[in-house]
C-alpha cells in the first residue's frame, strides 16, 4: 500500500506549550482515518501542519510533498473544512461557485451544482441567509466537488443537529468516498463515525496514544466485567484502566489473551469511546 501522509517526529511548540509532541504516523491511500482527542489535544495543530498552514519540527510528507514549502502544489490535490468553517456572509452561492471555478483547477462546478440541487440551498441566496446546517451543506458540496486525493475534515459537524450530522456522513459516503480517495476526520463525537473509519488515532496532550486499524482493535483490546476473586486475578494481569459499574469491576486490557480473560468474567470489545477514556486515564496514571 502507498502511504499518502508520513509524519516522523513532528513537533510544534507555542512558547512553552508542546501542542504536538514528537508524533509519528502514516496514513495509507483509500483509508478513512479518525483523529480522536479532547479539545486542546493538538488535533487542529497537527492538521495545520499536514495542510502546510504552520511550520513545525520533524519530517512530514503529504502526497510526496513538503506541506509547508510546497503548499501551493499540495492545495491542488487536497481539500479541507476547518472547524471554524467560515464563508463570507455577504457572498452569494453563485459568486462562491464563480470564485472556486476561477481559483481551483480541480473544482467541478457542474458537480457542485448537482450536489447543491439536492439541498435546500438556493443558488441566489447569500451565505448570511442560510442556517448553520445549510452552510455546512454548502461547504460540503463545494469541498466534495474538488477532485482531491486527500480530504481533511476538522470537526465537520460541530454545532449541527443530529439530522444534519447523519446526512453529512451519509452524503460523504455516497457522493465522495470511492475507496481511492483518502479522508482524515477529527471529532470528539466518536460514536457517530466509528463504524465508517478504517483507522483510528487517539491524541492527547500532543501525543499519540493509539494508532490502529479498526479491524485489529478486537484483537488487542478486551473489556472485562468481573467481581470478587476473579477481579483480583484479573487485576494481576495488568489492566490499563479499571472502573466501577453497578458494583462490578470493568477493566480494560491491552494485549492480553481474550480467552484467558473470558474465564474471569464477561469479555467484550470496548466501544471506541470507552477505549479512549481507558487510554487517556491509563496514560495519566
Amino acid at each position, binding site marked *: 500500500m502507498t502511504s499518502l501522509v508520513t509524519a516522523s517526529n513532528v513537533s510544534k511548540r507555542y512558547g512553552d506549550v508542546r501542542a504536538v509532541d514528537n508524533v509519528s504516523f502514516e496514513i495509507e491511500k483509500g483509508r478513512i482515518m479518525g483523529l480522536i482527542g479532547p479539545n486542546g489535544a493538538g488535533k487542529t495543530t497537527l492538521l495545520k501542519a499536514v495542510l502546510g498552514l504552520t511550520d513545525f519540527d520533524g519530517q512530514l510528507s503529504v502526497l510526496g510533498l513538503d506541506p509547508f514549502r510546497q503548499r501551493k502544489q499540495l492545495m491542488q490535490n487536497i481539500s479541507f473544512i476547518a472547524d471554524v468553517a467560515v464563508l463570507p456572509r455577504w457572498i452569494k452561492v453563485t459568486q462562491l461557485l464563480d470564485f472556486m471555478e476561477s481559483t481551483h483547477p480541480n473544482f467541478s462546478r457542474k458537480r457542485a451544482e448537482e450536489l447543491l440541487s439536492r439541498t435546500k440551498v438556493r443558488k441566489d441566496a447569500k451565505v448570511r441567509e442560510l442556517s448553520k446546517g445549510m452552510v455546512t451543506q454548502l461547504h460540503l458540496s463545494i469541498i466534495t466537488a474538488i477532485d482531491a486525493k486527500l480530504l481533511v475534515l476538522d470537526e465537520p459537524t460541530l454545532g449541527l443537529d443530529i439530522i444534519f450530522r447523519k446526512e453529512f456522513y*451519509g452524503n460523504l*459516503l*455516497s457522493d465522495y468516498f470511492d*475507496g481511492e480517495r483518502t479522508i482524515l476526520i477529527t471529532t470528539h463525537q466518536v460514536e457517530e463515525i466509528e*463504524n*465508517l473509519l478504517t483507522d483510528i488515532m487517539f491524541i492527547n496532550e500532543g501525543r499519540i496514544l493509539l494508532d490502529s486499524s*479498526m479491524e485489529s482493535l478486537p484483537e488487542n483490546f478486551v473489556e472485562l466485567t468481573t467481581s470478587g476473586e476473579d477481579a483480583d486475578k484479573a487485576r494481576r494481569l495488568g489492566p490499563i484502566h479499571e472502573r466501577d459499574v453497578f458494583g462490578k469491576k470493568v477493566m480494560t486490557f491491552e494485549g492480553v489473551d481474550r480467552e484467558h480473560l473470558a474465564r474471569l468474567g464477561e469479555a467484550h*470489545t470496548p*466501544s471506541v469511546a470507552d477505549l479512549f477514556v481507558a487510554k487517556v486515564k491509563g496514560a495519566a496514571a
Partner: protein
Amino acid sequence: MDPKWNEDVPIYRQLRDRVVAMILEGVLGDGDALPSVRNVAAEYRLNPLTVLKGYQELVDEGLVEKKRGRGMFVNDGARLQLLKDERRRFIEKEWPQVVATIERLGLDTAELLEQVTQKSDAGDKND
C-alpha cells in the same frame, strides 16, 4: 433509522445475517439485486469495506452473485438452499431437544401431532 448493532458480533457478519433473513422471508427473491454497497454504507454510515465484506460472505456461501459493474444479485435457488440448511439445523440441533422435552414431560406424541395437523388444516382453509 439506525440499526442496533450487537457489539460482540462483527458488523459485516450482522449485515450478512440481515440479507439472509431477507432472503428467507422472501423480501429478496431469486435474481433480485442487493442494495448497492454505497447505499448501505451511506444509510448506516458504515465503511464501504465493511459492507463489501458482508456481501463477500454471501458470495462465498453461493447465495449471491457478483455481476461486474452491475452489483450483487440473489442466486436462483438461494432461498431453497437456505431453507435446506435451516431445516437440517433444526433436525440436527433443535429437534433432539424438543424430543427430550416431550419425553421429560411425558407428553403424548400422537396427540401433539394431531394438534399440529389440525392447525395447519385450519391454516389451509384460511388461505
